[in-house]
């Protein structure tokens, strides 16, 4: 082990592992699931990293504010980790933080679309979105208040997103909706991340590329099943949705999946080589509805991801893996909290919430 690796990761490794140790355990999560009201749910978050939510709810009784707090916390965690890294490693963390920036940008664009294109009243909803800088300097107010789509492109001209957005125009957005614009933004941040990762030292680069390839495969499979099987998206559109990297898009099964009509598409055949266990599960669930099969695929692929990150956490400590695993676990925990919160809000019982809390 080189001195450089030790000095780079010794502190961050200890810090992040200590934070991981403070995360909610399975017993605590189960307790949260059993809550019958938001107040009871929040009461259980006492003495956890989520304790500020108790005070926030007490002040506002507003679940959307709690969700906004969760997002802001996630941004802060990413920015803290970036500050603790240097050079190319800091740039990689920043590139990962762009995922949150893209999510926020999509949220603001959706509001703009509702207001400017659909002429719907967005009222106070912009107040729930993050309005400070995440990575790039973005004037969020300028976007949500834009009269035309071209004003948005101009507002983003100093960011990496302007190029992708300039491929669209107001008329196309009005006709197609936001779907293709959003997927284009997703591709921007994944491409940027891949580009930065190229400059990492070999060990870290190999590790991060493996993760990105696997994530690309999983995301592509989910998109192929969701949009090519559950919904009827054309082969050409499906092809443009695919994220770079991974092996699935270069397989024979992928080509066949795109070539055949939707009615004959089989998720089972698509994943048979890469994930035989999943193919077996799908075969057993062939009588289930397309929605259920899609959910099955998403669950399975999520468990693959979780397993890989847990392995990473148990493995060699002085690598970028601990950062990847930490972000994954935080994201998973936040998603769980968010799902339970909304489940309780809509009056679901614990088993129903568990269904969605992947």
């Amino acid at each position, binding site marked *: 082990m080189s001195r450089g690796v030790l000095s780079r990761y010794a502190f961050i490794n200890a810090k992040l592992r200590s934070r991981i140790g403070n995360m909610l355990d399975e017993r605590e999560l189960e307790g949260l699931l059993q809550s019958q009201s938001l107040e009871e749910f929040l009461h259980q978050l*006492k003495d956890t990293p989520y304790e500020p939510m108790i005070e926030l709810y*007490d002040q*506002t009784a507003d679940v959307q504010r709690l969700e906004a707090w969760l997002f802001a916390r996630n941004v802060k965690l990413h920015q803290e980790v970036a500050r603790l890294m240097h050079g190319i490693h800091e740039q990689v963390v920043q590139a990962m933080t762009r995922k949150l920036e893209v999510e926020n940008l999509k949220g603001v664009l959706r509001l703009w679309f509702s207001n400017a294109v659909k002429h719907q*009243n967005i*009222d106070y909803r*912009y107040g729930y979105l993050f309005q400070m800088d995440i990575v790039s300097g973005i004037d969020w*107010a300028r976007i949500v208040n834009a*009269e035309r789509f071209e004003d948005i492109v101009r507002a983003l001209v100093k960011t990496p997103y302007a190029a992708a957005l300039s491929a669209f125009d107001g008329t196309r957005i009005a006709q197609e909706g936001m779907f293709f614009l959003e997927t284009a933004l997703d591709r921007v941040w994944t491409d940027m991340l891949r580009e930065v990762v190229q400059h990492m030292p070999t060990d870290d680069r190999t590790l991060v590329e493996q993760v990105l390839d696997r994530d690309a495969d999983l995301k592509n499979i989910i998109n192929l099943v969701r949009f090519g099987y559950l919904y009827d998206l054309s082969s050409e559109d499906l092809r443009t949705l695919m994220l770079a990297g991974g092996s699935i898009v270069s397989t024979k099964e992928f080509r066949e999946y795109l070539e055949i009509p939707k009615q004959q598409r089989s998720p089972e055949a698509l994943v048979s080589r890469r994930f035989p266990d999943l193919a077996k599960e799908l075969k057993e669930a062939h009588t289930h509805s397309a929605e259920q099969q899609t959910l099955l695929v998403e669950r399975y692929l999520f468990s693959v991801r979780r397993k890989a990150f847990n392995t990473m956490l148990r493995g060699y400590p002085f690598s970028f893996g601990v950062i990847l695993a930490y972000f994954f676990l935080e994201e998973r925990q936040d998603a769980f909290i968010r799902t339970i919160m909304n489940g309780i809000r809509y009056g679901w019982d614990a088993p129903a919430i568990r269904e969605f809390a992947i």
Partner: protein
Amino acid sequence: MNVFTVPMRLLTAVVLDESTDAVKKALLSLGVLDFIQVSHLAPEQAAKLSPVNQSEDPQTYAALRARVETLFQQASIPLPNVDRLDPEATTALDTGKAKALVDKVVAALSVLREQQKQLSQSRIRFEELLRYVENHDTQYIDVRIGNPAKGDAQLLGARLANQAYVLLQPADWKDMILLTLKRDRQQVSPSMDALGWTENPDGQLQPEALIVLKEHLVKQLEDLDASNVQIKQRITTRIQEDAETLEQLWCNLRLHELLGAIANNFSHTRNTTIFAGWVPKSSSDTLEQAIRKACGGTCVIEWTEAGMMPRAEIPVAVDDMPLLRPFQKLVDNYSVPEYGTINPTPFVAISYLVMFGLMFADAGQGLVILLLGLLGKRQSARNSGTARRMISTDMYQLFTYLGGASIITGILFGSYFGFALLPPVWFDYHAAVNGHDASGRSVYSILGITIWFGIAVIGTGLLLNWINLIRKRDWFHLVMDKNG
């Protein structure tokens, strides 16, 4: 002070089923029995025993209690004192009624919470408007100055109810001021047209209108805060209305939960209840009397001495030594001593303090640590019962001990904040290290002290180990082991 672990005895008792409830209460009152499952003691008899058959799972009580605690928390009501948990006062509990009571309060609160949420959303609207007004971001806002031909301010307000807006009629103005967001024009403009809004062409009024709007928005936000405080007060008041009933319910739930947990350790035959557990020898007579009293003497109680049982299965308790609690925690962090062996806490305390004193021999800095410890203890005492702190009271107690040790050794070596302000009682440590000590001591003298100290610590450790091995009658390790 007993340096060994507390001697234990194993109780096995058989009582008639009708006495079970009274026995449970007696056991809970004393709180000295560490239960074990009877099936563990007599596995061959396990099939003949039936487990407890409780009407309610203790988890149900726990969940309901947590809901009551949530209500207390919202009204900043502290949990009932443990003194109120009198097992004899336990009453029958109808969980359906208890749930209904909690649901009733929660439902009343949810109405208030909904009002609070609406205030929060209004706040978001006004905050956005104020931000644009303050920053003069006029590209995002429309400031209209004029009057509607039809209707009045009330009608106009009603038309704009779903938008973020401010409508003012300043006392010294003949016109109204209307602030809306430009992005809402699609919805706002038709309403304005319908009411025949006439705009005042005087452009000079705009800057003045912005000042008036800013003042108004700041006031609006203050009013919203005040309304929010009122709602929170109503929430507290609503919970306090039922506080007494809820406190009684909490106590009853907690008692049922604890009694349920005790009952989970009971086994049953057709007419009897059997239970077993470890109890400190000093409490065994009191416990026996309490059980006999509870069941009117109709019971069989059998005691088994600890020596008859495998040592690893006997629970370990040590005498509480309040002054040594911080060191007990240090010891517990490593491991709990084996049953029947010496509790090393007093020895750890002495060696820890001597070692710290030798390493940190400075009366001035020791005084700072001592004061920090005392200050922390005072703070902890003030905040007892509130949120859990990172540094516990015991840790502050440890600071005071360590500070004291540093002061004593500092005086011995004549070091006060690194200066030799007073002559050393023993010898000048720093001078000895630098070879200038008048008493002729050198760095080797200090090395000698540390070696003797090490010999004393290791020697004490070996001695304690031999005593433990003799008490365990482990002659083989006493003679053959490397530490024997």
